[in-house]
């Protein structure tokens, strides 16, 4: 159990450690643990938590009893009139968008981060190049939202003041309303996410690449490996554990994502994600039951990563 990191001579009365821990435990219980349990409870209740969710069922409509909020959270955005309508509506629902975000943003940040880390490794202005990529990390999603809204700006027929549409116009193309055109808009939002988080992935991956012993690389070169072989057969396999950590961190970040969508489209035009939908249910509609049901669905996606985190931690502790 307890590891020998504690000096054997350090002893204290049994209550002393809890005295040091008390403020932290109280605050975390009140603001994280208790609300989590409460959220699960509320998700089975009606809008204001005064009765079971069952009362919101309507005659002649499908009803899941106490799980009515979950039925709503899972199916409300879907159009079940035909298989094609179902398919189309799924891909602009918060779940379909979540899949787009996960695939697009996680692969985008990790791949660009990895390539950039390898490219700048050892060049003269490495530090400067890296801090340029990392800089968006320091600003808010809101700030980034404004920056990119301006990039995507859709002007008048005479003039394009958004740089992207100006470039398109200069090449004779038709300007595009990037943020309201489905399904393009979600991908335009994902680009903003990639812009913000690539620096994070790049820094972690770069540190891992630098920790590979020089001899390993040199030995493979003497054996005649090309640049690409060194990259794909030596560097990537060696830093795989770090790549996995980066991917899981990014997956969690994407699942929680709120600000970019809220600021840039407000979840309109089929760009909703779970977090913005939850906010709408809570605030715009005052539907606490439905809002919390969405929150519970969100945490169900995250639970595997909580378990993974704890496992990893236990492995580390065992190695101490």
């Amino acid at each position, binding site marked *: 159990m*307890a590891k020998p*990191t504690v*000096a054997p001579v350090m002893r204290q009365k*049994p209550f002393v450690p809890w005295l*040091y*821990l008390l403020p*932290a435990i109280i605050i*975390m219980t*009140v*603001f*994280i*643990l208790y609300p989590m349990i*409460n*959220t699960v409870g*509320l998700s089975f209740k009606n809008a204001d938590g005064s009765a079971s969710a069952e009362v919101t069922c309507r005659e002649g409509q499908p009803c899941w009893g106490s799980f009515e909020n979950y039925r709503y959270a899972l199916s409300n955005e879907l159009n079940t009139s035909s298989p094609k309508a179902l398919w189309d509506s799924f891909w602009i629902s918060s779940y379909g968008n979540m899949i787009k975000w996960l695939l697009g943003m996680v692969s985008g940040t990790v791949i*660009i981060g990895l390539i950039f880390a*390898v*490219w700048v490794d*050892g060049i003269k202005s490495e530090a400067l190049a890296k*801090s340029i*990529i990392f800089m968006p990390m*320091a*600003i*808010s999603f*809101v*700030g980034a939202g*404004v*920056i*990119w809204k*301006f990039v995507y*700006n859709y002007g008048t027929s005479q*003039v394009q*003041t958004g*740089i992207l549409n*100006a470039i398109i116009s200069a090449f004779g193309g038709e300007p595009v309303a990037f943020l309201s055109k489905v399904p393009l808009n979600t991908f335009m939002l994902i680009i903003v996410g990639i812009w913000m988080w690539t620096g*994070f992935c790049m*820094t*972690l991956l770069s540190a891992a*690449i630098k920790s590979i012993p020089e001899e390993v690389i*040199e030995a493979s070169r003497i054996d005649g490996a090309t*640049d*690409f072989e060194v990259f794909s057969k030596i560097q990537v396999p060696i830093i795989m554990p770090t790549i996995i950590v*980066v991917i899981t961190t990014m997956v969690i970040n994407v699942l929680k994502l*709120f*600000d970019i969508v809220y600021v840039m489209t407000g979840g309109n035009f089929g760009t909703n994600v*779970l*977090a913005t939908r939850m*906010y709408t249910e*809570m605030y715009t509609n005052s539907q606490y039951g439905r809002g919390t049901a*969405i929150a519970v669905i*969100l*945490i169900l996606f*995250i639970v595997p990563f*909580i*378990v993974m*985190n*704890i496992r*990893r*931690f236990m492995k580390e*502790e065992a190695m101490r």
Partner: protein
Amino acid sequence: MISLTRTKSNGKYDFTRLLTGIGIVLILVVWLIPTIGLLVTSFRPVALINTTGWWTALNVNNGPESAQHPDPNASYVEKLGTRFTINNYVDALTGYRGTKSYLEDCKSGTKPLGLSCSIKDLLNPRGMGRAFLNSVAVTVPSTILPILIALFAAYALSWMKFRGRYAVFAILVGLQVVPIQMTLVPVLRMFAGMGLNGTFPAVWLFHTGFGLPYAIYLLRNTMSALPKDLFESAYLDGADHWTIFKTIILPLTTPAIASLAIYQFLWVWNDLLVSLVFLGGSKPVMTYQISNMVTSLGAGWHLLTAAAFLSMLLPMIVFFALQRYFVRGMMAGAVKG
């Protein structure tokens, strides 16, 4: 690819190197241009923002009649001077919503709606000046409180032996990834019962709760990595836990505390969701004001770009001045793996 600079250059490598160089520059340009666009735009007059692209800012002759220099024979530098302005920043700071600009209105003697043309205008609830102060009022306690509490907890978890130590820490690791959304509704209801909604302590407490798991985790890892001889000799000299904590632990963990403080500071400063839910419009912070300008008020680009840049100013300074600490604070959680 990695060893380009370490290999003797020959024809083939020079070519790869050139391609890599182009790739790097391309990525850097894509990363920089959006921010440069914002910065340049925030200093341009409204008339020009809406009629010409920011990349033509150095062309002094384009744009509508009204934006031209009164004297067509003026020198390039003179013309350039009228092509940039600080009006956007003044208007954003004071929350000016008129049709001209705050400075023009005040100069001509007509007081803008709800403003008095004095230094007090910086405190206008609609302006970014007031929002800046609110952001500071939210951020400073929300940074200090969790670190203070985490220091004690981390000390107990790293240098005291007791039953349940391991379990407490495992729970902490799990809590780190709990999404804020999972707790918003109950906490909101709780705060409503206590009359705390729309007050600063509500946000302080919430940020403290959510900052704690990571803060404790990071500090505990730092503290438990300290050599134990240090403690043993102090302990043998008769020092108790409190003395050791004060005289040995605190000085030695200062770099980690700095990293953590910067990380938490930027996290809270940049947060929108928590301020939106618990403070809303009653004490608007900078992120709230901007998101409001984007979503509902439809404020022009001149105000939006200036406001956005104002909100980025402090994070940028912190980032460039203390980059090393910031990166460390950001990475400590993930890099352990």
